[in-house]
């Protein structure tokens, strides 16, 4: 089952390269779900606390376990070099504490290729309720979403079957 995620990569703080705060580099962020990715615009003022406020909508399959946010900087030659990456587990914005349509403000630690800490990224995520689902299904699942075991990667969704044909007697 595919969901639509509205992701807003808002800002980052304390960006570091080789354990030193970056000073004049222009940075941008990329959100990746599976194979698809979207990049934000460059933050012109540069520095270690960029603000992007980059909103994008991306589809997410039910089997996805995490989405990743990568932060790059653009060198003067025009090449993009990676500063660090953060992985957001899908359970942080779906499941226990957040229901659909809830605006989640989340922050994650960025780590570079060596595993060193290189900053914090702030995002906000809303899982858009899928329009083709039936409303009865939504009401029944929200009350017992803590007990039922996960089936398709989403914690606590009850699978309802809709009959496609009826036997007429």
């Amino acid at each position, binding site marked *: 089952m595919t969901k639509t995620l509205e992701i807003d990569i808002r*800002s980052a703080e304390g960006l570091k390269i080789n354990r030193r*705060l970056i*000073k004049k580099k222009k940075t941008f962020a990329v959100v990746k779900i599976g194979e698809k990715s979207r990049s934000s615009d460059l933050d012109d*003022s540069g*520095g*270690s*606390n960029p603000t992007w406020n980059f909103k994008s909508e991306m589809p997410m399959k039910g089997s996805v376990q995490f989405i990743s946010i990568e932060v790059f900087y653009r060198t003067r030659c025009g090449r993009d070099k990676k500063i660090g990456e*953060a*992985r*957001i*587990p899908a359970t*942080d914005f779906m499941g*226990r*504490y*957040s*229901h659909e349509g*809830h*605006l*989640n*403000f*989340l*922050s*994650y*630690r960025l*780590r570079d290729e060596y595993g060193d800490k290189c900053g*914090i990224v*702030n995002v906000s995520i809303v899982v858009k309720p899928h329009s083709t689902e039936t409303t009865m299904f939504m009401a029944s699942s*929200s009350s017992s979403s*803590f007990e039922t075991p996960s089936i398709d990667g989403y914690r606590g969704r009850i699978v309802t079957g809709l009959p496609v044909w009826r036997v007429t007697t």
Partner: protein
Amino acid sequence: MGNCLTGDVAGGKQAIGGVQQRPTSTTTNNAAQNDAVDFFFRSRGQYPLFSQIELSLSASNLIDRDITSKSDPMAVMYLRKKDGKLEEIGRTEVILNSLNPNWIEKITVSFQFETVQTLVFHVFDVDTRYHNVPVKTLKLKEQDYLGEATCVLSEVMTKPNRSMTLNLHGNFGAGVSRKLGTLSVQAEETIASKTVVEMNLRSVNLDNKDLFSKSDPFLRISRLVENSIVVPVCRTEVVDNNLNPIWKPVCLTMQQFGSKDTPLLIECLDFNTSGNHELIGRTEKSVAELERLCQQREAINFVYPSTSHGRNKVLKGQLIVDRFVEKIQYSFLDYISSGFELNFMVAVDFTASNGDPRTPSSLHYNDPSGRLNSYQKAIMEVGEVIQFYDSDRRFPAWGFGGRTADGHVSHAFNLNGASYGDEVVGVEGIMSAYSSALANVALAGPTLFSHVVDKAAHTASQSLSQNSPKYFVLLIITDGVLTDMAGTIDALVRASDLPLSVLIVGVGNTDFTQMEILDADKGRRLESSTGRVATRDIVQFVPMKEVHSGQVSVVQALLEELPGQFLSYVRCRNINPVGAPAI
């Protein structure tokens, strides 16, 4: 003193004052005002006998402590308490390369008419190695001391113009008496008002003041007080190398700009790393006039004051207001009185570190003479406050770390011993549930908060799905020795995006340094083991021994961070008080 380059240029180029910060950050330098505490006392007929005063500081002729450049001064204000110790009230920002700084950050203090309030000011030169560090976290012992001054607040208030100039003196050792400069203090009464104005400003056709490149312009907005005193209110960030700069949005509270008709002085300056910023142009407009400029899409030309002709030279450079929004920033009380419910939950520590309840030294001692033990005292005092704010007086009450009747150690068992529900009614309900639990539950261990935090988070998230305007506060009364710091931090980070605050009340005499880490007051955000960082600071720690020794009242301590944490939640989600018009 770092490298030869002139100091923390990047830090100096950042905006100060009325510029939008992270939505989840709470205000600083406001040590005295607390809505929740004022309301609590007013309901008992105790009206506050003080008014809020805002102090603006400036200094001149400071001594130079840096070798290749001038000092980067910052001022810290303390209150001298009855025992002679100094308590820090607030700090200004750091101004680069200036021996005559005019600080923008104001320090708020409550002016109590009946007491003598001795204010002590220390001026420091901030070392260049502190790049972009929030001023609150600077360790003063590591900075260079430039001098100090003392005055009494009532003296400042009674002077004409409410301003005083003090000579800085220092304790550098015997035989050293140099001129250390002067410090000026300007006091103003703050008007609590809710209107906030947000503007997007930009300029075109500015003059070029730099030799080999273009100007680096920034705006400084000041308020003109009576008798032509200029009080700087806010400064935008510096845009490098640009004669048509667009600045980030500027957000001014009515406290900062006075009234919509108060004239504001807007100066456009060219940033120089030497600290001598060159004036490009200036203009005087009130907030109402800026609103009109935006609506009619007009621009205003900067003028350059020229002494020779006696008239100001009108420049080609113009100031344009792209966007003007007037918002109302609701206060904590606005939300509460509109119907926002505060729901309290209580968790009591039943671990063995409290001591056997039968021994008199135990924190859980059941005194046959009827004297309250530490926990009972804490529950009574704290309960009085929370009962006031919780509308239905029904509190879920849990215990943790105890071995219940079925033989298992539980970290979130119902205090009332019932299996059907965990609620008790009123403070007396908590007390009776506590006494009965003490009889039925054996103290065990270890001290884990994560289970009760998870339970509270579960309750908060369930109310979210029902869309009801509720905010939850979990009160953990503990003796303080936390076993599972990592698990607790994980639970707190998971709960940091929910309408929940956690107040940890520490009883007994243990060392509570662990709790200070959880409280995250020094600016370090909590980080879980999965790499997630806490969205906001939801913890507040209150040590009861400070309350009992009279240093701070329990109401003040408990409710200190609650309005800030509550507002950080509702404001970043644009939740307005119930029934209030949506902006």
